[in-house]
C-alpha cells in the first residue's frame, strides 16, 4: 500500500461554509471621512494606499459624507433608486419564470445593483460598455426596453440575437452595450482596444469593462492592464468582487490581498470602493472617467460587494456557503441604503417606496406578458430556421448556401 503524503500544499479557505456562523468583523470598514479624493490626473504612485482602502460616502446613519460625496440632485438619486429597484423586480420575475419552466436559465444581480446602475449614470451615453453577465443594470440605466431583454431571454421571434445566445447574454449596439460573450474576461482587453481606437481617432469617448473576482485569474485581465498601461488607453477596468465565483471563494483569486492592488505594478491607479454604496460607486467612476477623458489613462476599480443570489439558476448556494452571509454582510443592501439616504434628505418616503415597488412589479408582469406574445424557446415562434446561417460571414458563402439548402430540404 502506498504511503500517504504529509501535504504542505496551501489551499485557500472560504470564510464560512454552510454549517458555520458568519462573522465579518475581520473586515476593515473605514468611515466615509477617512478617504481623501485626489486630483484625477494624480500619479498612481501617490495613491497606492487607495488600493487597500475602501471609498465610502454613505455612513451608517444614511448621511452622505466626506470628499467623495458626489453632490447629486435628488432627482438623480431617485432615478438611480428607481433603476435599481426595476432591476431587482425584473430579476425576481425572471428567476420565478425560470423556476416555472418558462426560461431555460437565468442569472440575478441581487445585492449588486448599485454597481451597474451607478456606473452607467456616471458615464456618458456615448461611452462603450464591455460588460460581463451580471451588469444588466447598465441596460436599465441606459433605457433599453425591458420587453427586448425578456425577448432575448426567451429566444423568441423578437430576440435581437435571433435565438443564438443563452438568456442574459444581451447585446445592444445603439446603447453602447457590447455583446456579452459567456466566456469569462474575454471582453476585458477588447475594451482596451476600443478605447485605443477612440484615442487613435482623437475622440473623447471612453470604454468601461467588467469582470468578476474569480475571472481576474484569466490572462485577459493582465493583457488589459498591460495594454491599457502601455498605451494609456482611456478605459475603466472594473472588478466586481462579489466574494464568490460559483462555489469558489474570492480567496482563490485574490492572492491574499485586494484585487485593486493588482494594478499597482502596471502603474495604474487601483481604487477599492464600497460597491453597495450608490454614491461612492458613482463618485469613483466619475473620477476615473474624468481621468480617462483628460488623458490620464486607465483606472482599475474593485467594487467590493456581495452576491446575494445564487450564481445562476443552476446552482444552490446553500450547498457551499452559509445561508446567513447575505443578511450579515456588513455593507448592507444598495437599494435599502439609497432609499434610507433619500428619506433622510426628506426626498423620499416608505409609502412612495412601497408604491414604486408595486408599480415596478406590475410593470414587469405586463412586460412579461407582452414578451411572451412574441414567443418562447419551447413553443416558438422563433426566427426562421434558415437565419442560423446568417451572420457567420457578412455574406453567405457557397458552402453555407449548400448546407442551408440541405437543412431546409431535410436530407443530404
Amino acid at each position, binding site marked *: 500500500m502506498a504511503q500517504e503524503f504529509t501535504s504542505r500544499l496551501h489551499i485557500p479557505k472560504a470564510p464560512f461554509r454552510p454549517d458555520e456562523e458568519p462573522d465579518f468583523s475581520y473586515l476593515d470598514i473605514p468611515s466615509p471621512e477617512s478617504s481623501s479624493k485626489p486630483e484625477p490626473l494624480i500619479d498612481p504612485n501617490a495613491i497606492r494606499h487607495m488600493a487597500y482602502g475602501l471609498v465610502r460616502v454613505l455612513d451608517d446613519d444614511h448621511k452622505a459624507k466626506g470628499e467623495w460625496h458626489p453632490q447629486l440632485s435628488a432627482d438623480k438619486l431617485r432615478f438611480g433608486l428607481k433603476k435599481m429597484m426595476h432591476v431587482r423586480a425584473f430579476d425576481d420575475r425572471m428567476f420565478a419564470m425560470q423556476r416555472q419552466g418558462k426560461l431555460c436559465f437565468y442569472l440575478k444581480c441581487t445585492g449588486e445593483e448599485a454597481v451597474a446602475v451607478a456606473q452607467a449614470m456616471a458615464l456618458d451615453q456615448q461611452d*462603450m460598455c*464591455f460588460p460581463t453577465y451580471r451588469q444588466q443594470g447598465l441596460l436599465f440605466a441606459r433605457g433599453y426596453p425591458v420587453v427586448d431583454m425578456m425577448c432575448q431571454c426567451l429566444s423568441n421571434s423578437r*430576440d*435581437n*440575437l*435571433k435565438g*443564438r*445566445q443563452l438568456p442574459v*447574454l444581451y*447585446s*445592444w*449596439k445603439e446603447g453602447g452595450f*457590447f*455583446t456579452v*460573450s459567456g*466566456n469569462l474576461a*474575454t*471582453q*476585458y*482587453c*477588447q*475594451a*482596451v*482596444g*476600443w*478605447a*485605443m*481606437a*477612440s484615442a*487613435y*481617432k482623437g475622440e473623447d469617448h471612453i*470604454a468601461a469593462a467588467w469582470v468578476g473576482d474569480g475571472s481576474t485569474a484569466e*490572462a*485577459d485581465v*493582465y*493583457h*488589459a492592464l*498591460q*495594454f491599457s498601461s*502601455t498605451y494609456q488607453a482611456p478605459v475603466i477596468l472594473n472588478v466586481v468582487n462579489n466574494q464568490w465565483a460559483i462555489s469558489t471563494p474570492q480567496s482563490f483569486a485574490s492572492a491574499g490581498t485586494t484585487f485593486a492592488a493588482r494594478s499597482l505594478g502596471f502603474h495604474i491607479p487601483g481604487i477599492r470602493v464600497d460597491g453597495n454604496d450608490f454614491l461612492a460607486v458613482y463618485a469613483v467612476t466619475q473620477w476615473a472617467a474624468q481621468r480617462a477623458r483628460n488623458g490620464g489613462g486607465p483606472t482599475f476599480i474593485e467594487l467590493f460587494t456581495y452576491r446575494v443570489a445564487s450564481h445562476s439558476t443552476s446552482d444552490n448556494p446553500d450547498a457551499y456557503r452559509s445561508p446567513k452571509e447575505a443578511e450579515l454582510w456588513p455593507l448592507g443592501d444598495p437599494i435599502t441604503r439609497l432609499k434610507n439616504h433619500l428619506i433622510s434628505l426628506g426626498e423620499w418616503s416608505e409609502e412612495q417606496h412601497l408604491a414604486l415597488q408595486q408599480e415596478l412589479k406590475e410593470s414587469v408582469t405586463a412586460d412579461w406578458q407582452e414578451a411572451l406574445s412574441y414567443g418562447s424557446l419551447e413553443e416558438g415562434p422563433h426566427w426562421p430556421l434558415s437565419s442560423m446561417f*446568417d*451572420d*457567420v*460571414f*457578412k455574406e453567405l*458563402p*457557397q*458552402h453555407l448556401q449548400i448546407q442551408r439548402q440541405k437543412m431546409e430540404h431535410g436530407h443530404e
Partner: protein
Amino acid sequence: MSKMNMVQAINSALDIKMSQDPCVLVMGEDVGFFGGVFRCTEGLYQKHGPHRSLDMPIAEGGIIATAIGMGVNGLRPVVEIQFADYIYPAFDQIVSELARLRHRSGGEFWAPVTIRTPCGGGIRGGQTHSQSPEGIFTHVCGLKTVMPSNPYDAKGLLISAIEDDDPVLFFEPKRIYNGPFDGDHNKPSVSWANHPLGEVPEEHYSIPIGQATISQAGNDVTVLAYGTMVHVAAAAIKQSGIDAELIDLRSLVPLDLNTIANSVKKTGRCVVIHEATRTGGYGAELVAEVQEECFWHLLAPIERVTGWDTPYPHAFEWEYFPSQERIIEALQRTLENR
C-alpha cells in the same frame, strides 16, 4: 510593374491600404520602428507614424483582443503574429470572439481584423518556428483562411483581406518570402526576380478570396496544393513527366470547390499535398470534399502527401518536409490504378 519578393509585395499592400484608409493600421511584436522580424512592415512606422505601425507587448492574446476592440470601434487592424507557432495564446480570442462576434450579436458587432502570420518550415526553425496550423483555423466557422504562394497573389489577396469585413487569417509561407522553393535544399536559393509571379503592379489591385487558380493545366491527375507546396509539387510534376493539373488553392475557407471538382472530374485522379501534420489536417477535408463531389469519376484512391504526425524536428527537417520524391511516388501510385 516591379520585381518584388513576397515581403515587398506584402509591404506594398500594407502601404497602399494605409495610404488609402486612415482606419488601417498594422500592429504586433517588433512591427513598428524595426519593421518586423521578416521586414514585412519596414518603413511603415517612418512613413505613417508610430500610432499606425504599433509595436506591441509580447502577449498574442492581448494583441488580438485589442485588435477586436479596435475593429468594433471602426478601425481595420492588420495584426502580425510573429510566427504562426505563437498564435496559440490568442486562440480563445480568435475562435471564441473574433470568429463569432457577428453571429452571436445578431449582426450588431463585427471586427474586420486581418491576422498575418508566417508559417511553415524549411528554415531550420525547429518545432516552434515551423508549424502550419491552418487546419486548426479552417475548422472554425466564421474565419476566412488564406495562404498565397507567390508575391503577386500575396499582394492581391492581402488587399482583399484588409478590405474584407470578415476576419481573415493570412498565412505567409516564410520559406518562399525571398524566392520560390522546390523542396531541394541542396540547390542554391532562387529569387523571385526571374519568376513571372514576382512581377507585381505597384498600384492597388485585389484577388478575390475564395478563388483557386490552375497553376499548370494537365489531364491525368489533379494535384491540390497551397503555399510552399505549390512549388514543390510543380517541380515533382516536372521531374516525373506526368501530365498533372496543379491547382493552387490560395484560399482554404471559402474553398473554390468548383475549380477542384471540374479538374478531378476531368482527370479522375487526385493527390492532396500539405506541409502540416496529417491527421485531421486540411487535406482530410479536401479528400472528403473531392470524394463527395467526384466519387463516380474517380479511377484511383485519393492520395495525401503531408508532414508526419510529429512535431517539426530540428535535425530531421528534410525528412519531415514533404519532398518531391514523396510527391512523385504518390503521383505514380495513383496512376498505377487503371
